[in-house]
C-alpha cells in the first residue's frame, strides 16, 4: 500500500519538475532569443490588427492595404533609407490580446504601431505604444476618444472623428435630401456606435431637423423585434432612419426593417462599408441606403487612387473591395511621411511633425490639431449610396460647424 503511494507521489513530483523545466526553458528562450540586433538595419512597423472575430471585417482589409503600402515604399528605398519590415500579430478582436500583442511587438523592436480600427479594440495597442514612447496610429478609429486626451500625446487616428462623420451624414440628409425628421437606432456596443449617433443627432438638430426618438440596441442580442415594432407603430413616419451599429448585427437589422416593407431611407457610418453587408442585403434589400465612409475605390476620387488600385491588384491579384484597404495604405504613408519629416522614428519628433504637417491621402486631406487640442483630425467624409446592392460615390462632404467632441 505504501509502495503505491510513494510511486504516485514520485511520479507527480517528476511531472511537476518537468513542467518547471519546460517553463524555465520558455522564459529563458524568450529573454535571450528576442531579436534586437536585426532591428537596427531596418525599420520595424508592428501591427496589432485583428484577423479573427468581430473586428476582422474592418481590420483585415486595412492589413491588406498596409501590406501594399509597405511593398510600394520598399521598392522606392523604404523610410529614412531603411527597408521596412511589417509584422502583424492577430489581436483576435479582444482588447486584452491587442494590448499584449502590441507589447510583444514593441519588445521585438517595433518603431511604430499600427492600431486596430476602433477605440475599444484598438486603444490598448496605442496605450502600449504610448508607454514605450512610440507613435501609434489607428487605421480608422473614429471615436473622438481616439486622440491625445484619452490615449497620450503620441497617439493618432487616420480616420475622421465621429463629430465629422455624424455631422456629414446629418448635413447630407437635411440639406441635400431635405429630410426633416429622423429616427435613430443606436447600438450601445462600443464607443464608435454610441458617439456616431450622438453627433448625428446633435448636428441634425442644430440644422433644424427633428429627431423623433433614439432607440437602443445591443450587439449580439440578435433580436430586433422590439425596436422594429416601435418603428412600425410610429404616428409620424420619419424621413430617414439613422442606424449606428456594427456587422454582423447591422445586416440583420437593415434586413428586418426592409423585409416588413419599410422603404424609408437608411443612413449610417463607415461600418456599412463592408461587402459582407451588401451581400447580406442583396439586390432586394440593398436599396435607399446612404453612408459616410473614408473614401471610395474608384479612379479620380482622390489623387493617387489610380496608382493604389494598380499596386493593390499587383500584390493581391484582385481589386480592393472596401475603402478600408485605403486606410491601411494611408496609415503607413502617414508614418512614412512623418518619419521623413522628423528625420527619425523617435516618438516625440514624429508626433511633432505630424501635428505640423498636412497629409494628402487616398482618404482626402488630413490635418491634426496639437496634442493640447486632442489631435483632432480635420478631414472630409466620403458619401456613398447603395442601390440594388451596388454602391456608387456621391462626393466628399465637409460639414460646416460640426459639433465639438
Amino acid at each position: 500500500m505504501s509502495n503505491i503511494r510513494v510511486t504516485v507521489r514520485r511520479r507527480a513530483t517528476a511531472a511537476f519538475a518537468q513542467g518547471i523545466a519546460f517553463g524555465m526553458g520558455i522564459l529563458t528562450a524568450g529573454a535571450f532569443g528576442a531579436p534586437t540586433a536585426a532591428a537596427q538595419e531596418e525599420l520595424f512597423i508592428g501591427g496589432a490588427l485583428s484577423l479573427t472575430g468581430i473586428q476582422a471585417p474592418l481590420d483585415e482589409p486595412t492589413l491588406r492595404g498596409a501590406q501594399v503600402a509597405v511593398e510600394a515604399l520598399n521598392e522606392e528605398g523604404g523610410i529614412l533609407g531603411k527597408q521596412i519590415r511589417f509584422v502583424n500579430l492577430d489581436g483576435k478582436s479582444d482588447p486584452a490580446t491587442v494590448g499584449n500583442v502590441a507589447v510583444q511587438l514593441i519588445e521585438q523592436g517595433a518603431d511604430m504601431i499600427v492600431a486596430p480600427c476602433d477605440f475599444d479594440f484598438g486603444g490598448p495597442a496605442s496605450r502600449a505604444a504610448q508607454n514605450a514612447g512610440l507613435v501609434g496610429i489607428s487605421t480608422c478609429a473614429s471615436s473622438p476618444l481616439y486622440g491625445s486626451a484619452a490615449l497620450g500625446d503620441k497617439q493618432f487616428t487616420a480616420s475622421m472623428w465621429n463629430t465629422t462623420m455624424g455631422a456629414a451624414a446629418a448635413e447630407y440628409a437635411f440639406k441635400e435630401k431635405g429630410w426633416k425628421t429622423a429616427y435613430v437606432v443606436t447600438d450601445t456596443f462600443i464607443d464608435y456606435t454610441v458617439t456616431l449617433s450622438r453627433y448625428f443627432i446633435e448636428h441634425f438638430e442644430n440644422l433644424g431637423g427633428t429627431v423623433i426618438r433614439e432607440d437602443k440596441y445591443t450587439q449580439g442580442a440578435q433580436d430586433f423585434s422590439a425596436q422594429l415594432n416601435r418603428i412600425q407603430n410610429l404616428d409620424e413616419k420619419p424621413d430617414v432612419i439613422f442606424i449606428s451599429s456594427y456587422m454582423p448585427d447591422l445586416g440583420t437589422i437593415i434586413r428586418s426593417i426592409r423585409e416588413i416593407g419599410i422603404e424609408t431611407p437608411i443612413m449610417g457610418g463607415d461600418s456599412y462599408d463592408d461587402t459582407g453587408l451588401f451581400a447580406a442585403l442583396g439586390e432586394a434589400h440593398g436599396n435607399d441606403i446612404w453612408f459616410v465612409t473614408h473614401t471610395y475605390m474608384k479612379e479620380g476620387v482622390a489623387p493617387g487612387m489610380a496608382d493604389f488600385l494598380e499596386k493593390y491588384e499587383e500584390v493581391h491579384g484582385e481589386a480592393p473591395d472596401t475603402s478600408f484597404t485605403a486606410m491601411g495604405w494611408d496609415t503607413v504613408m502617414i508614418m512614412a511621411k512623418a518619419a521623413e519629416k522628423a528625420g527619425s522614428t523617435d516618438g516625440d519628433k514624429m508626433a511633432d511633425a505630424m501635428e505640423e504637417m498636412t497629409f494628402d491621402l487616398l482618404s482626402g486631406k488630413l490635418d491634426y490639431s496639437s496634442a493640447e487640442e486632442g489631435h483632432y483630425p480635420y478631414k472630409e467624409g466620403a458619401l456613398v449610396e447603395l442601390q440594388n446592392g451596388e454602391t456608387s460615390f456621391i462626393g466628399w462632404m465637409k460639414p460646416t460647424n460640426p459639433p465639438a467632441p
Partner: protein
Amino acid sequence: MREILGRAPYLNTVLTLLVPLVLIAAATDAFGGTVQQRIVTTMFINMILVLGLQVYMGNSGIVSFAHIGFMGIGAYASAVLSMPPDLKAMTLRDLYDVLQPIDLPFWLAVTVGAGVAGVVAAIISYPLMRLSDAAAIITSFALLVVINDVLVHWSEVTNGPRTLFGVERFTYLWTSAGVAFAGLLFAAWFRESRVGLQLRASRDDRVAAQSCGVNMVFVRWVAFVLMCIYAAIAGALWAHFITSFQPGHFYLEEVFLILAMLVIGGPVSVSGAVIGTILVTLAFEGFRALEGYLNTNQVFGTQVFGLTEFLLALAMIGILIFRPAGVMRGRELRIGRRHRGGRGMPATKERAAD
C-alpha cells in the same frame, strides 16, 4: 490551537508549492522581458481565480461558473473607486455624483472591491446553497449571466458594453505573485480547517455528513463567499494590470480557461489548482508561440487561426478521458515522509469530486 491552525501537513504542501513559484517569479523578474513578465503576472492572477474556485468547487464538489462574474464586480468596483476624477469625467460621463470625486489608493480600492463582491455574494448565494448537483451548476451559470447582464447594461458605472479606460496601472509581477502566495496559504489552510473538513465530508457523502451535524448550507455558503472574494481580488488586480477592459472579458471564455486550469490540475487538491494553472499557462503560451511561428513562416501556406483554443480544448478532453481526477489525482504535493498517523484525524483517501 490545532483547531485554528488545522492539521499540520498543509504547511508542508504550501512550502513545497511556494519554492518553485517563488523561483518562477524571481527568474521572470531577473531574466524575463516585458512579455514574459506580463505572462507570469497574468498567470498569478489566474492562479488566484483557480485557487478561489478550488476553495468552493474542490471542497464542495459543485462546479461553479459564477465566480467570473464576481471577478467583474471586483474589477469594476476597484477601478471606479481608484480612478482620478478628471479621467472619470472622460470615461464615465453619466457616473453618479456620489462616486465622481472618490479617489481611493490602490490597496484600499482592492479591499473595498473585494468587500462589495463578498457582500453581494453573501446575499445572493445563501438560498442557492441548498441546491446540489445539476440544479446547483445551472443556477451558478444563471448567476453568471445575470451579473454579466448587469455589467453590460449599467452604463452609469461600467460604461456599458464599451471599454472602461483610464484605470491606473498598479499591478506588477510581485503584486500578483504576493497575493497568489497568500491565497495559496489560505486555500491550503481552509481545506484542513473545521469548515473545510465539514464541507469535504458533505461532498463525499451528503447524507452521512448531515446526520453527523454538518450544516451543509452554511459550510457551502462560507466557501462560496470566499471564492467570490478570491475572484474579486483577482479581478481588481487584473483591472489595474490591463488598465482598460469591458464586461465581455468576464464571461464564458474566462470561465472556460479557469475551469480548464482547475480540472486539468485536479480540483480536489490545492496542489492541483497550482499545477493546473502552471501547466495550462505553459500550454497556452506554447500553442500561441506555435501559432505565431506557423503564421509568420507560412508553414501551411495559409494563416492558421484559433489553434490555441482548439488545442486547449483537446487537452482538456484528453485529461478527462485518461486522467479524470486531473494531473494531481486529488493528492497534495508534500516533501519528506508522510505525516505520521495517530495525530489528529487520519488522512482521508481523496477521490475526484464527482
